[in-house]
């Protein structure tokens, strides 16, 4: 197979001065420079270092502070240039060679060069579990070479196609080498020096994070709608835990953006002349992953019956209208998504037939019985979701007693760590189909606790290639097997819903359904 390479189209014309501040006020559609955007977050970011962060609030703050080697087109999923102006990936996706653009600097004046990239990747690896997302992206990193000051060669022990998409995330965003010398705790508290369009002024826990514009910024991503510095003077992320207060503050113009709209607030927002912006989170949809080391779910027929007994169209009635029932194990916004709704059809008779064949006969109370045991299993979960109760009713319809135990995150993680569970309820946001391998690979995380098989071979093959057609074929086959053999019972997609005032322009989601404010401006 020929090496996969991307040639840079010079999307950013150097020397093309931005029209900042000189825009005629008469034209409301022309970007206006200036103003501070007040953005409500629903919780304390805890740690604002994007390399360590695991929650969306922190990732949304971090995205504004750091640039990445690449960027990802939210529409096509394609990886495009940012700090790296071009790159090459070898035939089995083990060696990645990035050529950096010249002239980019960190806000402390240090150059964004090959040594800085190497120091960052090694730093993230050294963070271990502290880099909640990065430790997965960099698993198996073997060595990093810097043949010259603007070329970086990253080599992995095994094929690692997902690494290219990972370089577009804020998690692998770059910090100044001097900044990396600080402790992880100091960086968490806001001592961050990146090369991004904004710099961090202050971070007060449970209160706000203030950013100001970097005036000499001139290396926006090739996806950006403009060149030069950002439009906004600054951004204030205000931490407002109550959803009703976020809604009222937005309606009374005390903030401009509410990043987290509660489903019950959605109808109110549309009536108040505010704008709702929504996008499905890419990655693995909310699903039930079955523990196949239990006698019950070792039986493929029982797993398949579960899948057929669920009426996903009915789930739509109780979720947000901006959220959609699953049509595959991957959400629609994931690159290489393909519709598998034919495998997710509601077929209660088929489910009953499968359970009959598996030897589970309807008992006195309507729940099926086999060898004196009832067809019952319990789910411990912590997520806020109305759908599980409905799933419970639907399963009851075919004679399955699905018991729900809503608990705390700590109790659920303890139960999962102990391995004493029948089923898990989860989703995982990632704008790369490799997320399937992250969760289901029997030789990796092995959420199903099953023996390796064909699915794992396909997933492993898919991590060896960045050839879209070839990768699509492998991901399709793996997705199909995961659904058809009932390893995962796909339910609904997760959607991010934000609301903003009418004056906010140029705000959109990036590929992972998080926010990039570089092109955002405020109408005067």
């Amino acid at each position: 197979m020929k090496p996969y390479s991307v040639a840079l189209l010079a999307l950013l014309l150097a020397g093309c001065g931005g029209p900042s501040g000189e825009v005629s006020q008469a034209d409301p559609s022309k970007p206006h420079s200036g103003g501070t955007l007040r953005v409500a977050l629903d919780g304390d970011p805890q740690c604002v270092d994007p390399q360590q962060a695991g929650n969306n609030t922190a990732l949304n703050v971090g995205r504004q502070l750091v640039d990445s080697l690449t960027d990802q087109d939210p529409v096509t999923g394609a990886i495009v240039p940012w700090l790296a102006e071009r790159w090459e990936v070898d035939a089995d996706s083990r060696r990645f060679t990035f050529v950096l653009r010249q002239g980019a600097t960190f806000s402390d004046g240090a150059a964004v060069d090959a040594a800085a990239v190497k120091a960052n990747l090694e730093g993230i690896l050294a963070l271990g579990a502290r880099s909640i997302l990065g430790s997965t992206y960099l698993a198996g990193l073997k060595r990093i070479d810097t043949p010259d000051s603007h070329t970086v060669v990253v080599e992995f022990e095994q094929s690692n196609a997902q690494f290219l998409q990972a370089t577009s995330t804020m998690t692998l965003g770059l910090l100044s080498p001097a900044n990396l010398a600080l402790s992880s705790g100091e960086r968490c508290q806001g001592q961050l020096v990146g090369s991004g369009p904004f710099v961090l002024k202050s971070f007060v826990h449970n209160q706000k994070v203030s950013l100001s514009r970097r005036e000499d910024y001139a290396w926006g991503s090739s996806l950006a709608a403009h060149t030069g510095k950002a439009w906004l003077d600054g951004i204030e992320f205000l931490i407002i835990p109550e959803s009703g207060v976020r809604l009222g503050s937005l309606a009374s113009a005390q903030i401009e953006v509410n990043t987290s709209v509660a489903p019950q607030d959605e109808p109110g927002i549309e009536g108040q002349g505010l704008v709702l912006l929504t996008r499905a989170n890419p990655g693995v949809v909310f699903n039930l992953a079955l523990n196949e080391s239990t006698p019950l779910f070792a039986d493929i027929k029982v797993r398949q019956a579960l899948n057929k007994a669920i009426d996903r169209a009915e789930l739509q009635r109780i979720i947000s209208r901006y959220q959609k029932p699953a049509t595959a194990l991957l959400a629609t916004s994931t690159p290489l998504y393909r519709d598998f709704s034919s495998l997710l059809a509601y077929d209660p008779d088929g489910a009953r037939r499968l359970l009959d064949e598996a030897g589970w006969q309807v008992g006195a109370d309507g729940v099926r019985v086999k060898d004196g045991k009832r067809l019952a299993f319990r789910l411990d979960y912590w997520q806020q979701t109305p759908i599980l109760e409905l799933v419970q009713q639907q399963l009851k319809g075919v004679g399955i007693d699905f018991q729900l135990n809503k608990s705390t995150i700590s109790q659920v993680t303890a139960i999962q760590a102990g391995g004493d569970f029948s089923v898990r309820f989860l989703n995982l946001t990632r704008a790369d189909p490799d997320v399937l391998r992250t969760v289901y690979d029997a030789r990796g995380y092995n959420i199903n606790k099953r023996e390796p098989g064909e699915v794992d071979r396909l997933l492993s093959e898919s991590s060896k290639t960045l050839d879209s057609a070839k990768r699509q074929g492998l991901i399709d086959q793996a997705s199909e097997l995961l659904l058809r053999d009932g390893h995962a019972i796909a339910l609904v997609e997760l959607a991010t819903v934000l609301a903003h005032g009418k004056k906010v322009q140029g705000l959109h989601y990036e590929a992972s359904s998080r926010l990039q404010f570089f092109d955002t401006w405020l109408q005067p």
Partner: protein
Amino acid sequence: MRGTALYLLGRGGQALLVLWAAFSLSFVVLYALPSDPVSIMLNQSGEQSTVNQQQVAALRAQYHLDEPLAVQYGIALWHAVQLDFGNSIQSGQPVSASLAEALPKTAALALVSLAVALVLGVSLALVASLTRRRWLRDLLLGLPAVAVSLPTFWVGLLLLQWFSFGWHWFPAMGNQGFASLVLPTLTLAIPTSAVIAQVLARSLAATARLPFVDALRAKGLSPLRVLLTHVLHNAVIPILSLSGVIVGSLLAGSVVTETVFSREGVGRLAQGAVSTQDIPVVQGVVVLAALIFIAVNLLVDLLYPLLDPRIRGAAR
């Protein structure tokens, strides 16, 4: 003189015992919970964490979470004795820094609320005691029961709805400036003033039935003068005894109030730390709260004899 020194020494010993008990009890409770702060941190987004198990184990070891319980307790206590509560597991911030940042904000809110609650509560009790209209007295004395039963978050949201979202008089969130203090202060003062009003009204009524009041009346003093100069003085002792409860309710109320009004403070810090089982932070907050209670109770005990000569006599 020697008696006073011995008394203070005894109280100091008691205080240390209370601090140790608070520290140890919270330690046991936090460790009795299933799971641990590291797993919670790794799952903080609510999504599946896929960090590999060796890395998780390494991180756990950093916080001594892999040691036996007794060893962990010993390490934590040894550091706590040196006033070092370590770093937050969730945010990496030193606990002492978090507390130093949050305490002034909560103290300002609690003190202003206490002042407002005293004014409201004492006025209500006095007016209720003075009025001759029975219906008005019943109405006024019924108010505290209503005020106490109003959920704090609901009162807060209601105030926000009117005064911030509707009329734009006060900001809905933040710690900036006096304006941001008005609505949270009211929210926190209402239940506290109700407690003060109820206890004081009852105490005033009881004191007013004592024989010395009849004597004063018989001398021809006006009811207002009797109430303000003689009855009130004798009736405040129960309020003083309630100080501990009032401080406790202000601290507890700050959790809800700071959340509704998006304020930085000890309440928010505690709420966040408890929900993420962030042991060092919770321990810091617990010890701080215990210190405040000890200080308040000591102050009250020292004030009693100054206010009431009978207690002074009994103590000697």
